[in-house]
Each structure stands twice: as C-alpha cells, then as structure tokens.
C-alpha cells in the first residue's frame, strides 16, 4: 500500500464542466420543497405513484400525471455514512445517506440528520424500522432538498 513515486507525465489542459440539469417536468416538486411540502407524481390513468417524481408513468406510459402531497412519515430500510467523500462534497462533514420507506409505500434516498455518524452510534441506532420524518431544507448552494430526521 506504500505510495509509489509518480512516473513522468504531462498535465492535461484543465476542464471544468457544469451541466444544466433540466427540472421543468418536476418543477412542482422543487417549488413544493421551498414551501415545506413533499410532493410526488401519481398517474391519472393507472394510479401508480412514483418516487422520485416523473412526468411519464413507467407502468402504463401515460403522460397524464397529477401532483400529490406525501405524509412525510417514513421508516428506515438501510443506511451508510460516507467518510471518504467525492471532490464536490469535500467541504461537507461526514454525512449519513439512508433509504427509507414512506408511509405511502414508496421508497426514497436522502440524508439522515440527527444521528452522529460515529461507527459505534451507527451500529446501535441504524436498525430497519427506525421511525423517521421528512423535513425540507435549502442547501448551501441555494437548492431546495429534503432530509430524514428521527421521528
């Protein structure tokens, strides 16, 4: 595992890429978060609810979907704490990512706040069935998002 000496190289020309991620078709979700609401899509044709929201129903392929408000009640399915972070998250403290089952039966991925990301505490507290609630928040970059917190 010892770090070997680097071989000769020429540094490439630098490239910084920022993609513009379209949200037109899921805009009510992002606007809802700003107002403290947790919304998703429901197909008007077959009734399928999806999370994350999507403008086209993956079951019957209808594009007639409506926006419905979710209860914000959830329970934990599984979680991890990310100690070694990607470069664009380098400034963040260690964060816990959870997969939770919403009361409506849908699943969602998101940060779990309110639990210390310490291995001993994680081992004790991270158990399937742990009751959670969804809270809305605004990121440092100004983007709305949601988090799970212990209920």
């Amino acid at each position, binding site marked *: 595992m010892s770090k070997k000496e680097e071989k000769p190289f020429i540094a490439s020309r630098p490239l910084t890429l920022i993609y513009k991620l379209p949200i037109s078709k899921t805009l009510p979700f992002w606007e809802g978060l700003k107002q403290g609401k947790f919304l998703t899509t429901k197909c008007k044709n077959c009734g399928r609810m999806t999370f994350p929201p999507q403008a086209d129903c993956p079951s019957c392929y209808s594009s007639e979907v409506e926006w419905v408000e979710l209860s914000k009640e959830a329970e934990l399915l599984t979680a991890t*704490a990310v100690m070694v972070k990607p470069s664009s998250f380098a400034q963040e403290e260690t964060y816990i990512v959870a*997969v939770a089952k919403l009361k409506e039966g*849908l699943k969602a991925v998101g940060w779990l706040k309110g639990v210390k990301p310490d291995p001993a505490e994680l081992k004790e507290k*991270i158990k*399937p069935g742990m009751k959670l609630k969804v809270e809305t928040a605004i990121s440092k970059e100004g983007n709305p998002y949601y988090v799970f917190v212990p209920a």
Partner: protein
Amino acid sequence: MRRVAVVGVGHSKFGRRDDVNLGELAFESIKPALEDAGLAPEDIPFLVVGNGGFCEETLPAVAIADYAELYNAELLRVEAACATSSAALSMAYNAVASGKVDVAMAVGCEKMTELDTPYIVELIGRAGFFFWEFQHFGLTFPGYYALHATAYLNQYGASEEHLAMVAVKNHKYAATNPYAQFRQEITVEQVLKSPYIAWPLKLFDCCPITDGSATVILAAEEKAKKLTDTPVWIEAIEGCGGSANLSKRESFVGLKAAQVAAEKAFKKAKITPDKIDVANVHDCFTIAELMAMEDIGFCGRGEAYKLVEEGQTYIGGKIPINVDGGLKAKGHPIGATGTSMIYSLTKQLRGEYIKSNQAPIKHGYALAHNVGGTGHYAYITILSRK
C-alpha cells in the same frame, strides 16, 4: 446460432500504471491474446472495446485500435459500467454466433489513475443514479454497496468479520497472481482495524482504483478447432438490466439483475450451479461477493457468510471463488474486469493457471459474474471445456 469458443486470452499487469497510456496498456493484453490464438492483427474482423471512460480519451476504442493498428476490424466501444467488458464480450459473441464473422476480439481497458483519487471517487459516485442520488446526497460507490451491507448484516446476523474473511481470501490468492495489484496477504484483524470508507465498509473491504487491460478472442466452432486443441466454449452469456435508482429497488440483500442473468445463463447452458468448478464473482466490495454467491445460487439466501466462515470458497472447498484475487485484490480497472475474469477462467479450464491458484476441474464448467453499478447491469458467462 453457432457454437463459439475462447481461442486466445491476454492480460496486462493491474495496478497503478502511470507508466503507460490507454493504447499502450491495451497493447499489453492484445499482443499476448493474438499470440495465444495464433492470429495476426489483420485476422481480426470485429473489435469491441470495453471502456468506462475515466481517462482523457473521448473515443477510447479509436485510441486502442489505432495504437495496435487493428484496422481491418469493424470497431465499436461499449459501456456497461463495471460490467463493461462482459458487455463487450457479449457483442463479440453475437457477431461470431450469428455467422457475421468467424473471429472477434473483445478488449477491456481502463486507465483510472490519471485523475487524483477524489475526482475518481466523484466520477464513479456519479455513475449511480446521478440526479436523485449523487447531485443532492453525494453517494459514492462504497456508499451504494454499504447500503446493501447494512441491510445484509441486519437481516441475516452476519458480522463485519465475515466481510473481512472475504478480503483475506482474495488477498491470499492475489499474492501469488503476478498480474494482481496487491501481492500481500492480510489478516482479519488488519481488515477490521482499517479505517471506514463508507460505514460499515472499511478500506480493506473495498477494491482499489486500478489501471489494466484484458483481451479475449473468440472464434466460431470450425475455426476454433483449427486454431487450438484447447477451445473453451461459451455455453451462455446472458445479461440483464436493473433499477438504477435505489428507491425503486425491492430488496437490498441481493441484486435482482444478477439473479435474472444467472437464471437465464443456467437455463441456456442446461446445467445447475453445483456443476461449476470455479467462479469469478464481482467482489468490488466484500459484501458484493456474499450477495453474488446467493444471487447465482451457490447457496440459499443468508447462507453465503456461513460458507465463507467454513472456508468453502477456497480451493478445495465446495466452490472456489475469486482465486485469482478478485476485484478486491487483483484490482478493478472498470472496463477490463469482465475480460479479466474470462482470462482467469479460461486458464483454469485449460488447466494451465498459476499452480497455486489452479482449482480442481471436475465437471468442466466455470462461471463469471460481472455486475455494473449496484446491479444496474449484470452479466453471467458460463464457460466449459467440453
């Protein structure tokens, strides 16, 4: 469809290969594969390059084909995340089996260390479900598998020690594999003491960041019999896609795509899992090896960690797994891993693998399990020497 055999394999040294560029690295496996098959560059009419896209080349297939001057071939590049070169092999197989060509080459090659580690962690993390998982929540690949590890350990009562046992085995076999990135044995205690990368996975639960290449040449039955006395037949190569977004996933203790691909492959090959003499499975993280054993059907749900505890996955055990060191210790150059598995298993079935790593071949079958993402793609290949 015609029968198709592996007639040539080549492998580069895996590791931090900052002494070579993409074309030079691919050449290290293309040349020995051609020599193994007794073919010349102009004998290759169909070339599929597997590359995940982690270096500066926008058109990696072109860089590789140009360096080795494989100009006679129809050329394409495929991507199936960490199952990329199994997908490449599948395309090459189709071209030969269909009768389009008599010979085809699949080159898996990846250069990952040209970027510093945080950037590679970033790029691989983006390869889950970008918008809903990475953009907002910064999941990394260790993180994706850690979510499965948490679920598995909670559901079946396995421990972090069981995960460590997988790493210990794979390091043991990598120690005697000259192509492997890590050539030293480790202990369970060392694994358990290593720092957490994504709880509950620790440094020694994770495969390294690797540069490497592996090449496989296929031929149709008649041609294969002329080229070699030891053809290794592709009995099945079956793939399946799966949910990218974890919120659409039914279960976190196995990978559905791998289960479906395995079922399809065993049906096609007309055999059952107990006929497999040796297997390479996608152990990008230790938990992945346990899930793979259950997804393939080497044991029932929740039983893999018990087989590991009993040492049944070592040579001499019920089912030797990753006895070339696996992704965990041989290394995991994303686009080269699938063809690297086929390299090891072809040598195993020919009975010409590294002596200390040669598994006993009783039934004459070997299996490669190659997963892209966390089951976003899965390929199962069954090889035979019959």
